């Protein structure tokens, strides 16, 4: 009698979860913009046997944006997924993998992301700020003001904008623009940059020379600016061993 076909592979099977984790790490490692994404749900899995110990795996994954910028050294496992009320962003990915003798490799990925609808957020949280366009005039002004403010008050390296990651606007009860952006340290101080900005060069691409800023600007009823930047080299919770220090 012919052998019975193998039972269908389930989305919650350990092998599928392992393939999904491998795929999410690959996607984050090969992304250079925005934030790290975390697995939310495995939507579909299909396995095509190719021969002994060789199979092709197709995965459909539902991902969610985390608060970790893609340049952050924080491991994905320690990154917090954005809450629904922060105007969550979802990623949908189709991935093709190969598994040979238990070893996974990626053959192709195709992802696109989209934010949750504003109506959904407002239904649950009417006062929550909503995502704004990254090239919105108020957003650009807020990022410039925040970076200038931070650079003028900080004696360390002059920071330059790498990219704006997120922006949200709220109109009631106060008018607030909240922004998040990635920065890179230069070889200048703020004073040197004021004298000759062109001469300020980005430091060599070391992870500790990148950083991340959050800022909020209230324009009504009164003006108020709060900006905070953190270089990843000095990120709390991550220990960077010094010379001679036990690195266990």
């Amino acid at each position, binding site marked *: 009698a012919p052998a019975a076909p193998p039972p*269908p592979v389930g*989305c*919650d099977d350990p092998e599928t979860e392992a393939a999904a984790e491998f795929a999410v790490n690959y996607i984050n490692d090969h992304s250079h913009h925005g934030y790290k994404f975390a697995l939310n*749900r495995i939507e579909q899995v299909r396995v095509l046997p190719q021969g002994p110990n060789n199979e092709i795996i197709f995965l459909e994954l539902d991902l969610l944006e985390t608060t970790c910028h893609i340049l952050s050294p924080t491991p994905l496992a320690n990154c917090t997924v954005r809450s629904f009320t922060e105007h969550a962003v979802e990623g949908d990915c189709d991935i093709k993998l190969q598994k040979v003798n238990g070893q996974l490799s990626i053959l192709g990925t195709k992802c696109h992301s989209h934010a949750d609808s504003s109506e959904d957020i407002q239904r649950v949280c009417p006062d929550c700020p909503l995502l704004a366009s990254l090239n919105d005039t108020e957003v650009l002004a807020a990022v410039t003001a925040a970076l200038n403010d931070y650079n003028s008050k900080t004696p360390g390296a002059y920071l330059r904008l790498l990219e704006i990651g997120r922006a949200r606007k709220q109109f009631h009860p106060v008018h607030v623009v909240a922004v998040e952006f990635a920065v890179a340290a230069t070889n200048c101080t703020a004073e040197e940059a004021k004298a000759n900005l062109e001469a300020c060069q980005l430091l060599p691409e070391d992870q500790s020379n990148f950083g991340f800023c959050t800022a909020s600007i209230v324009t009504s009823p009164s003006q108020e600016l709060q900006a905070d930047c953190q270089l990843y080299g000095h990120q709390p919770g991550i220990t960077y061993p010094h010379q001679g220090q036990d690195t266990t």
Partner: protein
Amino acid sequence: SVAKRAVAEVAQHDKVPRPVGFVPPPPPCPGKIHHFKI
């Protein structure tokens, strides 16, 4: 003319009764939601 056949009734009679306490297996996909569904 079209003759009506009692297919549904026959199928009902052929149905094997499930043992007491039987829990159907979960659908293989989609998987569990780790955080929340948008």
